[in-house]
């Protein structure tokens, strides 16, 4: 029979990150969020704990864990705050993992040690102003300069997490580098170090949620990097980032489950304190049923991402499971955030209570790293529907 218990070391990690999130993040993150400020101190502490290096081998400065360890950490962080969680998620699954999976030995040695300790943050530039889910619509171009020594990149990228912090080290950019034999676009991934001339980071966006995380539009204007900065094989950029996105979906699912669980946590505490019509509101069935639904959603979504992660770690195809996990858990996050703010009544609309923040943070989960529509498309394709 399937044993759903976590192994001791995973449980110890989950508990450690839980304690960290409750003690170090929860008391202060609301203020960062309202000020729309990136929490460098918290990022540094998470770096000391090794959270940015969880799935990376020790020889590159990582923790020698795996992707599931990362997911557990993300869930516990997002249970308290999504901005902090997505900073780790993007830093690891989009920043470090492409280099770890597809980089040369030299690229790994150059970038991974500082990315794993959180001293530097990595970002992944895929989405463009005119194309998110339609990655084939990539317009950013990279050409090899006359003497063959440099890539010259031109174009722009949108909604790129971790791309403009004081500690951003490198952005992996996808660009059209030629035409494939079948006439399609040849897309490759290229490493662009922060501060490279011609690489401009626009002022940060004003966002509905994730307000303590760092998101920018990026512009590349005759931006030159050495040809050695090609990440992985030329023309394999598309295939590479699909693998990265499949993994990332499981990570976003874990983050969504965290938010959905955070809603349950906050509500359980609140309904035991708040009184109305002579009783604690937790005594009313209308409230109990809402919380029971919330718990059922988060529980189901958690099982979905655990199972997707298990298949990933076993090296089996997990595209469908990742899409299901992401779809189910982002739904759970949205639904739980709506129910939680309803239970909190007027206080749910106030920034001083976490549930209002959860409500604002939940929306992007149905959009980022593949919209819910894209997840449905993937599931349908995996079922053989064409």
């Amino acid at each position: 029979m399937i044993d759903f218990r976590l192994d001791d070391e995973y449980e110890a990690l989950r508990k450690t990150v839980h304690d960290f999130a409750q003690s170090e993040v929860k008391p202060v993150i609301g203020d960062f969020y309202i000020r729309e400020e990136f929490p460098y101190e918290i990022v540094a502490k998470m770096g000391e704990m090794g959270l940015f290096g969880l799935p990376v081998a020790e020889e590159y400065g990582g923790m020698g864990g795996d992707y599931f360890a990362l997911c557990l950490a993300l869930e516990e962080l997002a249970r308290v705050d999504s901005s902090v969680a997505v900073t780790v998620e993007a830093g690891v699954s989009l920043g470090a993992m492409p280099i770890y999976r597809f980089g040369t030995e030299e690229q790994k040695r150059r970038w991974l040690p500082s990315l794993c300790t959180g001293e530097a943050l990595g970002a992944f530039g895929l989405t463009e102003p005119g194309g998110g889910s339609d990655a084939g619509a990539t317009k950013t171009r990279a050409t090899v300069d006359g003497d063959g020594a440099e890539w010259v990149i031109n174009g722009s990228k949108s909604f790129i997490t971790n791309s403009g912090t004081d500690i951003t080290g490198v952005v992996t950019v996808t660009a059209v580098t030629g035409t494939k034999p079948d006439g399609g676009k040849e897309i490759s991934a290229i490493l662009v170090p922060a501060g490279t001339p011609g690489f401009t980071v626009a002022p940060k966006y004003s966002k509905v949620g994730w307000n303590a995380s760092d998101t920018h539009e990026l512009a590349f204007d005759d931006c030159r990097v050495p040809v050695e900065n090609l990440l992985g094989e030329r023309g394999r950029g598309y295939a590479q980032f699909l693998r990265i996105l499949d993994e990332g979906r499981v990570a976003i699912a874990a983050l969504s489950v965290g938010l959905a669980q955070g809603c349950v946590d906050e509500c359980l505490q609140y309904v035991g304190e708040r009184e109305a019509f002579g009783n604690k509101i937790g005594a009313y069935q209308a409230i109990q049923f809402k919380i029971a639904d919330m718990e059922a959603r988060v529980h189901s979504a958690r099982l979905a991402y655990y199972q997707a992660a298990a298949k990933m770690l076993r090296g089996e195809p997990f595209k469908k499971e990742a899409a299901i996990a992401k779809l189910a858990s982002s739904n759970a996050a949205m639904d739980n955030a709506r129910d939680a703010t309803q239970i909190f009544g007027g206080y749910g609309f106030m920034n001083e209570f976490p549930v209002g923040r959860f409500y604002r943070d939940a929306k992007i989960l149905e959009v980022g790293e593949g919209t819910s529509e894209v997840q449905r498309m993937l599931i349908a394709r995996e079922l053989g529907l064409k």
Partner: protein
Amino acid sequence: MTNIVVLVKQVPDTYSERKLNESDHTLDRESADAVIDEINERAVEEALKIKEAGEGEVTVLCVGPDRATDAIRKALSMGADKAVHVSDEALQGSDMVATAKVIAGALGKVDGYDLVIAGNEASDGRGGAIPAMLAEILGVPQLTHARELSLEGTTLKVDRETEDGVTHLEANLPAVVSVTEKINEPRYPSFKGIMAAKKKPVETLTVADLGVDAGELGLSGAAATVLEAAPKPPRAAGERVEDDGDGGTKVVEYLAGQKLI
């Protein structure tokens, strides 16, 4: 190379409701989540800082039931090198004198110790006398209630802080130190540390291994007997201060009376 032994105790989580057994008034270990005492995490941190600043080995010493291995693992995952766990049914209900003797006996099983670091007081029993008793049994200096600690060669310097003020203490190793909450902020274990902890050696000892008289141990060997225990009464209403123009003074007098300022 400094051999440091850190005393670690598993206690009921202070966030949960803590109870005593109705039959013998000992701690009901089943009623609450068991965790490493937070003050011991600070003791481990201080030991690790000394180790990292130079050379040393950190051994965790724990007296407690089998499930106290969780507390030991936490200390090992923070970075301690090895552990000694004294676990024996005969220890259940032991008083502080007996516990100090057991710890002293277990220290004899560690390959030479230079420094013993303990928390100043466990959050369950709150006796706060073990470090002093241990130093007395071992015949070494005791530097208790340390809020700051430094080691230069074999000279230990401690800022001891109590209600009466701060005292600067100095002693040569070997010595016993107890630390307060002000000593440091303990680190969170990393996943690498958690994985490594699984492979670190934990030596399990029983009373028979220690050369301690079993007759002095346990509930029957305790010098005092608990006849009755009652739950803490609910919190009483606070003290009201009427402000007749001297409210500020009265508040200050009250706080001073409580030794809060």
